[in-house]
């Protein structure tokens, strides 16, 4: 299609890649954190809880700045990692990290609520049939929380598609590397006459996210129908 320029298509493709990776890579951690918060009690649980929510509370610029300080090539985490060849700073991986961090609280909350709604008596029944706790999780808990996991993933994906403040602050706005749709929109909005291009990008972004949303609803309905009967 020619109503988007090549740079804009690049931003769309990049946003998709960043959001997908942010979602997929944070999902296992999100499930783990949600499970820990819902079911375990351990010292520092409330600390973990707070930490998970932090990106929601902080203005995105602050989160981005903290990421820059921590995961930048000079940072206490980014430094050692860059020695190992893992670089986030000013790479699309960094954009994915920022988007993942910003979306994490949403993902964890959704999954946690689902876990809390699982009847523990079903998990007990599974244990009496010989399933060890990891197997109980995989064969009972996980299938039962699937709607919550899907909801959490879609929230995270949508959030990642829209994430801007932390991303631009952390990894800047480099075309083809870190210029996601929201960053491109931002740049267009900073100059006279950029509104049309911005609007086009907004439409693409909304279209993609809505598609993902519909897909997730469909998945959730399928899962619910399976559990409900027939």
């Amino acid at each position, binding site marked *: 299609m020619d109503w988007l320029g090549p740079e804009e298509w690049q931003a769309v493709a990049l946003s998709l890649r960043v959001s997908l990776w942010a979602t997929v890579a944070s999902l296992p951690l999100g499930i783990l954190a949600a499970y820990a918060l819902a079911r375990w009690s351990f010292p520092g649980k409330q600390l973990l809880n707070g930490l998970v929510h932090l990106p929601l509370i902080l203005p995105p*610029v602050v989160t*981005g*700045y903290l990421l*820059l*300080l921590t995961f*930048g*090539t*000079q*940072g206490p985490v980014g430094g050692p990692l860059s020695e190992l060849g893992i670089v986030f*700073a*000013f790479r699309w991986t960094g954009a994915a990290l920022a988007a993942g961090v910003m979306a994490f609280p949403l993902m964890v909350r959704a999954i946690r609520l689902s876990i809390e709604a699982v009847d523990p008596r079903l998990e007990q029944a599974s244990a009496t049939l010989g399933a060890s706790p990891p197997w109980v999780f995989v064969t009972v808990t996980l299938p039962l929380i699937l709607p919550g996991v899907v909801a959490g993933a879609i929230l995270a994906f949508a959030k990642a598609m829209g994430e801007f403040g932390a991303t*631009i*602050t952390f990894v*800047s*706005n*480099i*075309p*083809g*590397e*870190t*210029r996601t749709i929201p*960053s491109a929109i*931002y*740049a*267009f*909005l*900073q*100059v*006279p*006459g*950029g509104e049309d291009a911005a609007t086009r990008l907004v439409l693409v972004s909304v279209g993609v996210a809505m598609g993902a949303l519909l897909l997730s609803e469909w998945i959730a309905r399928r899962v619910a129908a399976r559990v409900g009967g027939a």
Partner: protein
Amino acid sequence: DRITVFAAASLTNAMAEIEAGFEATTGHEVAVSLAGSSALARQIQQGAPADIFISANPGWMDALESDGLLETGTRVDLLRNSLVLIAHGPEAAPVEIGAGLDLAGLLGERRLAMALVEAVPAGIYGKAALESLGLWESVAPRVAQADNVRAALALVATGEAPYGIVYATDAVAEEDVTVIGTFPAASHPPIVYPAADLANRDVAAEAAFLDYLRGPEARAAFERQGFIVVAD
């Protein structure tokens, strides 16, 4: 060679033209990262792989310079801008900007849109101008501060605020606002966009790009956006 340019987001349009022209004439590749000057400067402090920095105000360039992050002798004042008073609507009457302007009277109960007066360059310059004209005291309670000058413009364009102070460059393309006066250059510190080569890397393309910025093609591009190019 491929170079990365960190440029203030207000240069988006001009940089697009310059990037294309520079790549066509020199064969070098350029990537331009557009964001707020403060974000870009902080990233440079944290080791961003930028080769050229064009800031929308001297303050952040000073900060980088004192951190020793600039290639000595490469800093130049590239562009200038002017501040204008704008009003909502296509046909507002012009006013005389000076100590006698009853800006507070014009506003009444309504708001004057500006960028953040303590933080964002356009706001800082605007506040300075109003202070030097003796108008600040009377309008300060009516100021609505946006996070950047484009947002301030939008407030006037939508009619939410009847008047606003923005850069001349921002006002040109907006149909719903009228420039009703320009602040005298002497009423505020000079509005300068400095540019510099950063000290992290040294490739030929950097110097070439700085030269190109001051060349005729770039000048034309900047002027098309309403900037005043600082003569050497």
